[in-house]
């Protein structure tokens, strides 16, 4: 493998045979070619490598939910509390290594108490498992390159005659701090197991999760849905114990060949009812543009509550109002799972006169109790003053009218059709809210007109003539019933 680095082609990775012939990563390509004229070279494809690493990280999710990328070629797994499931740390490491080897990867791995020590051991003492507290003695004999410091620091340490981590560790802290800075000391302390830095996982840690492994990979949708329901009911039990309900759930499907697919659903209210969760997940699975491909089957299915909220246990009541509300909330959740929560909306009043902003269409799942009540713009007995259909972008129209101020249009041309106006109401002047905009927006004079066939339109003239604008421009903003 070769990459272009600072205008020089250098080897970025070498295989085992090349290593035995004296090549190493970082060597200029010209030197390598001089040593081995028959050298086979490939251009490195870093994005593809990263993608592969992420796929492997996805696969590693099955061992622990805390997986972090350690670019360019490493993965960090926090296995606290997970090792006993595999019969101890050594057994777990062997298992992961064996499974990755089976998939055709070259693997090096180690288990230690801190990130730096684990990384150093993985690179320089493959397969070691260091019990917590023994990091200092385990890493002491390793070369200082294992610390993964920047090349200048490593070079300086070598020049100073410090070749192993143990030798560096013996120096006084304040000397190192003054010479190399606090970051280097922190790395060293981490390697020695003195300070612990948490890993930052790729995906947020779920609040609650339940999973099921299969000895024989499952393929059929019926079994998958059944599994999801039983996972949902065990998740529901945990949630009930904690007095919480899930607002966001994620189901992850681990395919036996390593691919992982995830689907997520959101609910409008904290939910822990297994039947509802199953229905919503089923809805989502059904609506996937790219259907869930089981390949050779899933060997692990996991359901996590990625966001949980406090939920009051509610007794089943016989109040039909409450039941109706619940049914509608469930319908909203179902529609949101299928079409996306931005597509199912409910209306809320907004405290403004600007027609397009007077009502807000908010995602119904997140609609809270309205703060402002609706106020009709018409008085009792009058015809509607606001149109039933509103154009998102007002459409320009041509207007013929008597040349008098505030005179309504006599004819209007919209979408290439002339309409004769028979009745007109207006003008209703609506000034834009100057405190919302940097630049002053033109005032609108609205007219409600009815044409000879009874069709009714809502038109406005932009700008006050002579003050804000010198030319007439008319727009159609909506249509009345």
């Amino acid at each position, binding site marked *: 493998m070769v990459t272009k680095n600072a205008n020089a082609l250098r080897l970025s990775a070498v295989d085992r045979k090349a290593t035995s012939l004296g090549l190493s990563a970082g060597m200029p390509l010209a030197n390598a070619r001089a040593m081995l004229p028959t050298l086979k070279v490939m251009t490195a494809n870093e994005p593809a490598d990263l993608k592969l690493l992420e796929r492997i990280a996805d696969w590693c999710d099955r061992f622990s939910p805390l997986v972090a990328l350690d670019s360019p070629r490493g993965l960090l797994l926090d296995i606290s509390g997970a090792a006993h499931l595999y019969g101890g740390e050594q057994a777990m490491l062997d298992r992961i290594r064996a499974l990755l080897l089976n998939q055709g990867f070259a693997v090096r791995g180690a288990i230690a108490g801190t990130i730096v020590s684990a990384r150093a051991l993985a690179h320089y003492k493959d397969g070691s498992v260091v019990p917590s507290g023994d990091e200092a003695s385990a890493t002491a004999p390793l070369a200082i390159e294992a610390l993964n410091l920047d090349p200048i620091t490593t070079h300086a340490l070598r020049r100073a005659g410090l070749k192993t981590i143990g030798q560096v560790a013996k120096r006084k802290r304040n000397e190192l701090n003054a010479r190399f800075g606090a970051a280097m000391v922190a790395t060293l302390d981490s390697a020695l197991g003195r300070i612990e830095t948490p890993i930052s996982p790729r995906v947020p840690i779920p609040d609650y999760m339940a999973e099921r492994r299969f000895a024989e990979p499952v393929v059929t949708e019926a079994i998958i849905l059944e599994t999801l329901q039983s996972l949902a009911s065990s998740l529901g039990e945990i949630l009930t114990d904690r007095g919480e309900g899930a607002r966001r759930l994620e189901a992850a499907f681990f395919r036996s060949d390593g691919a992982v697919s995830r689907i997520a659903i959101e609910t409008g209210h904290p939910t822990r009812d297994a039947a509802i969760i199953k229905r919503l997940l089923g809805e989502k699975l059904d609506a996937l543009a790219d259907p869930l491909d089981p390949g050779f089957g899933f060997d692990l299915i996991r359901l996590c509550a990625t966001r949980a909220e406090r939920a009051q246990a509610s007794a089943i009541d016989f109040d039909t109002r409450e039941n109706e509300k619940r049914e*509608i909330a469930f319908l909203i959740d179902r529609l949101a799972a299928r079409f996306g929560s931005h597509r199912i909306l409910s209306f809320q009043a907004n405290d403004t006169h600007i027609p397009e902003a007077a009502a807000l269409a908010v995602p119904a799942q997140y609609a809270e109790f309205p703060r402002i009540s609706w106020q009709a713009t018409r008085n009792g007995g009058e015809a509607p003053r606001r149109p039933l259909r509103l*154009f998102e972008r007002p459409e320009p129209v041509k207007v013929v009218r008597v040349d008098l101020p505030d005179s309504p249009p006599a004819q209007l041309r919209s979408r290439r059709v002339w309409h004769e106006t028979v009745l007109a109401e207006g003008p209703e002047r609506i000034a834009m809210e100057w405190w919302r905009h940097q630049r002053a927006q033109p005032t609108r004079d609205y007219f409600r007109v009815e044409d000879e066939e009874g069709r009714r339109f809502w038109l406005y003239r932009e700008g006050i003539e002579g003050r804000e604008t010198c030319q007439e421009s008319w727009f159609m903003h909506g249509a009345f019933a």
Partner: protein
Amino acid sequence: MSDASSKIEFLRASLAKAGLETPDKRSRAPLGHMAADRTLKGGLQRGALHEVFAQSSHETSATGFAAALAARVGGDKHILWIRTDFSALEYGEISATGLLDFGLDPSRVLLLRVSDAEDALHAASDALCCPALGTVVIEIPREPGILDLVASRRLTLTCAESGVTALLLRFAAKPEASAAETRWLVRAARSLSPQKDIEEEHWGRPVFVAQLLRNRHGPLGHWVMEWNADDGDFKEFPNTGVGAADSGIVVSASCDRPFAAAVEDAGDTASLRSVA
């Protein structure tokens, strides 16, 4: 014979006692317009599919007619309005303030935006199973192939089971075979000037020319209705004034129709006088 019928009576009674016999959810919602209600035998059937077709360029009027029917049918239950993206671009988005002025509480209305007719039908058949809803309005422009007799039959069955009413609002489409209970063709008519006591207003309440093109269980008809947003019902359009006289309605001769009674019912409107 009497033995058998008494046995059936007994079985019915025991079913009713056990609560197994479902009561008829399919009541009728009176529209308020007397002639129309008479033709519809009391009102619009709940728990059924009704189609509202817009006459070309009268789409907003048909929207208003559907909204009015939804208000009449649904009581104070929620209304789900399903519309496709195309119809919002072409005919305008449903406006909450407009619904409010039209006499519908916007907090009772849920709006579902879908990308095409297939999604709209899928969402509709899902929503029609939810008896907490009063009405589902499905707004589908043009003539997608998926909206066929089978689809409308499916909607009808779902409606009948749950008691939710479906209103299929069609723009730029020709009526075709369907399983709908009723089918309306709607256009706007000139409004009347309102009562004298409101000085500053010149235009009146929305007026619809509604043609009942199909009625599975009764005669057809043709009426001019005025929607009263305050009372939330349809009114007879007064026979006076300029509004209806020149609204130019042409009705085909009624002799070839199965129910000739319709025109007599509608005959009181000025628009039909010339034809009748």
